[in-house]
């Protein structure tokens, strides 16, 4: 959308009044906020041309039976929801313990309005896309809402499929997950296109809110078609003694802007921010992260790995920010780029802003290619050079996925990654 979408979105009449007010205010904020421009520090190295969405319109209802059939994921999910163009078309919850709320947001706004209001989009978007966060807030019609009560653990994984279908359409998927004290849950969002040819836009937002001692793992698998662009804003709040993992996997789309903010809110909080991106052809992934240590005695670790093929481009900009008084912070940030082509471009901006002294913080960034010695080693064992390179790139990604420490979910993630490598191999 150039900078405006017209007309203003209409809030469903069934939604509570507070939500209608929020959407109205967000739309005004969207109109009042200027679009990013060259020279804006949060958009350094960014390809601003990708923000021109002229001609795209809100997605409508489409036939969904085939997409429901294609929505395969885990063998035994705790719950499974399928959205097509932000509309829930299928849901089942065979493994959810009692008391867990796992609903489409549209329904949760009606049945659990107060609970949603307490947590809905509380944090300020500060990594550059405030305008698009406002647009998302004003325009969203649905999404996922999960609430796990105190001391309840969801054993399996909640699996969510988001399909985008139609030509020149925009969707606004939203995910809000809230854990009670000592609760535990894992959610996988999968973003895919119904077909390979139609251009689309996804403006997604996810909000992960934890209570003391809880554990929340979130995985976003993005395999949209290569005509589609995506802005995804991730906000995570990790409470005292709570632990969060956020893994983002990018294999699809033509252009993606991921903004991930993780706020350590209490002593003993632990946050892992992970990403695997495998761009090929002319794909471009722009990732901005923020590890905000607002409390003392907290730990955060970020590991982003990009394997860049063909004429692709990545931007990584990360910041570890330690508040005054957040002593005994332990924070790490690593971005590794594996350059698989002579035409690929990797930009890295790892950063630190430290305002407390009793800290251990470090960051590292590397960009390099596979060494001849590694290829030689595998060739000496009978593996041809093309497969050898693929094997090394896969191993490079697997190190990140293994941080999930859940076999079934790791297997699902690796299936996405292997699909991408298979596509790359087929194109060689």
């Amino acid at each position, binding site marked *: 959308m150039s900078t405006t979408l017209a007309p203003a979105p209409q809030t469903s009449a069934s939604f509570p009044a507070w939500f209608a007010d929020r959407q109205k205010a967000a739309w005004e904020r969207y109109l009042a906020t200027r679009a990013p421009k060259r020279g804006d520090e949060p958009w350094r190295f960014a390809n601003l041309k990708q923000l021109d969405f002229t001609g795209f319109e809100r997605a409508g209802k489409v036939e969904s039976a085939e997409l429901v059939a294609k929505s395969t994921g885990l063998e035994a999910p705790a719950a499974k929801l399928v959205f097509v163009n932000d509309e829930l078309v299928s849901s089942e919850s065979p493994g959810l313990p009692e008391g867990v709320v796992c609903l489409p947001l549209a329904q949760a706004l009606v049945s659990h309005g107060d609970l949603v209001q307490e947590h809905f989009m509380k944090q300020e978007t500060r990594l550059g896309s405030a305008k698009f966060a406002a647009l998302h807030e004003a325009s969203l019609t649905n999404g996922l809402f999960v609430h796990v009560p105190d001391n309840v653990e969801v054993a399996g994984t909640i699996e969510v499929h988001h399909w985008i279908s139609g030509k020149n359409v925009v969707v606004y998927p939203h995910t809000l997950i809230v854990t009670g004290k000592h609760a535990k849950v894992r959610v996988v969002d999968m973003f895919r296109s119904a077909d390979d040819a139609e251009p689309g836009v996804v403006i997604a937002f996810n909000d992960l809110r934890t209570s003391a001692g809880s554990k929340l793992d979130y995985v976003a698998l993005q395999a949209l078609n290569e005509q589609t662009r995506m802005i995804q804003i991730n906000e995570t709040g990790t409470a005292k003694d709570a632990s969060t993992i956020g893994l983002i996997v990018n294999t699809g789309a033509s252009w993606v802007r991921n903004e991930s903010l993780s706020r350590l809110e209490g002593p003993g909080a632990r946050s892992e921010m992970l990403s695997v991106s495998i761009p090929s052809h002319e794909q471009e992934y722009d990732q901005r992260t923020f590890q905000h240590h607002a409390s003392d005695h907290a730990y955060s670790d970020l590991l982003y790995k990009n394997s860049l093929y063909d004429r692709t481009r990545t931007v990584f900009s990360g910041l570890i920010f330690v508040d005054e008084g957040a002593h005994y912070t332990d924070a790490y940030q690593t971005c590794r780029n594996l350059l698989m082509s*002579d035409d690929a*471009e990797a*930009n890295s901006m790892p*950063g*630190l802003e430290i305002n407390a002294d009793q*800290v251990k913080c*470090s960051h590292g960034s590397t960009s390099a290619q596979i060494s001849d010695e590694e290829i030689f080693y595998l060739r000496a064992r009978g593996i041809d050079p093309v497969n050898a390179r693929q094997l090394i790139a896969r191993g490079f990604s697997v190190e990140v996925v293994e941080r999930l420490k859940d076999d079934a979910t790791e297997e699902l993630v690796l299936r996405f990654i292997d699909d991408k490598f298979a596509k790359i191999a087929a194109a060689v």
Partner: protein
Amino acid sequence: MSQEDLAVLDSETRDAIDIDRTKGDFTFPERNKFDAGRGLTEKTVDYICDVKGDPQWLRDFRHRALKVFNDKPMPTNWATKDLENIDFDVIRYYLSDGEKPKRSWDEVPADVLETFERLGIPQQERAFLAGVEAQFDSEAAYSNVKEELTKQGVIFVNSTEGLHKHEEIFRPYFGKVIPTGDNKFSALNSAVFSGGSFIYIPKGVKLKQPLQAYFRINSENFGQFERTLIIADEGAEVMYMEGCTAPKFETSTLHSAVVELVALKGAKIQYVTVQNWSSNVFNLVTKRGLAMEDAEIRWIDCNIGSRLTMKYPGVVMKGKGARGEVISIALANNGQHQDTGAKMIHAADYTTSNVVSKSISVGEGRSTYRGQVHIPKHLKGCKNNTECDALLINTNSRTDTYPAITVKGNKHSTQHEASVSQVSEDMLFYLMQRGLNEGQAMSLAVNGFINDLVREFPMEYSVELKRLIDLEMEGSVG
């Protein structure tokens, strides 16, 4: 370190640590024959051109630069807001007594001589330097190089003399490594520059001893804008060192230099800076080198003083096999912000660059590292290594790191590592168990942190550096 602490040390150690804090903090009455007045207009530029007898091409160059300066915004979208406190209208842009630089210290006016005597420059010249230039406000007061070097064709003069007497060497490189419009402060310097050094080392001449320039600000509300151009011809080698001081006035002072280095095929330039400006100086400097085939440029940089330093020495590696290096130490004390870093632009095959940066933040001091590494497409075999480590001493100390690395293509490797840590309580305890008090233990730990970099400085500087660090650490514990 308190007098009580000093009392328990032997006299040699005491002498080593007990620096006179007022060493640079003195001033003499102004006796300027030429004063461009306050504020910056076209008239200021014309005044400087007239006094210096600039040729028309330089007058035009300065005027174009003034326009660029006026048009360019302050870099406050990313830089500290403290820049907005510079009042360009009260600054005096040119002050000079109208004297030509002297070749002998005996001819230098008594108060200027005393200034440099107190700073130890003539002694250093006798002891280990090949040549010295001493700048007092806008112009050089003294400039001399050893006779045998002159015979070999070495040129070491101030920039005015360089462009007047050696225009054929000076002009082709002047403003080429750092164009006027590079940033707001390079434009400012281009408009009003005065002083600085012009050095030319002929083909194959390898200087065994360093050349040194010393920049001294004497006057209040003064802006010093020296311009340095060093050209090392094919196979030549030179080490150049610069030092800077200013007295502490109540008002702020601006120092905005432009330094351009050109190392032709196989040449080596080492540029060593020990900056100890007083805490009222805005030190906004642009430094860049151009390294041709198999040439090497090393910036060895230590920033201890100033209110705000913004300085990111760079190397453009334009020739195959060229090498660039930045070794830097920054110490930010109360009220100081050391915003330093490095730029490495790879522009030819098989070029390598290395950046090692260490910073120490004391009290409410803030140190920042900003870096840029750029490896464009179609090059092969380029490598960069960057390491930056920050040490925080007190609860309110602050540090930031903002590198930007762009690599295109798959025949290169870059690695960047940064860490932030504090002096561990265990380490202090260990040292104090061996009889040191907390302040001494902290000084030792800090000196240990930067020790591997201090060794890169010439001996005379490294001793001075350690003393300065000790001095800055005084009272930081507790």
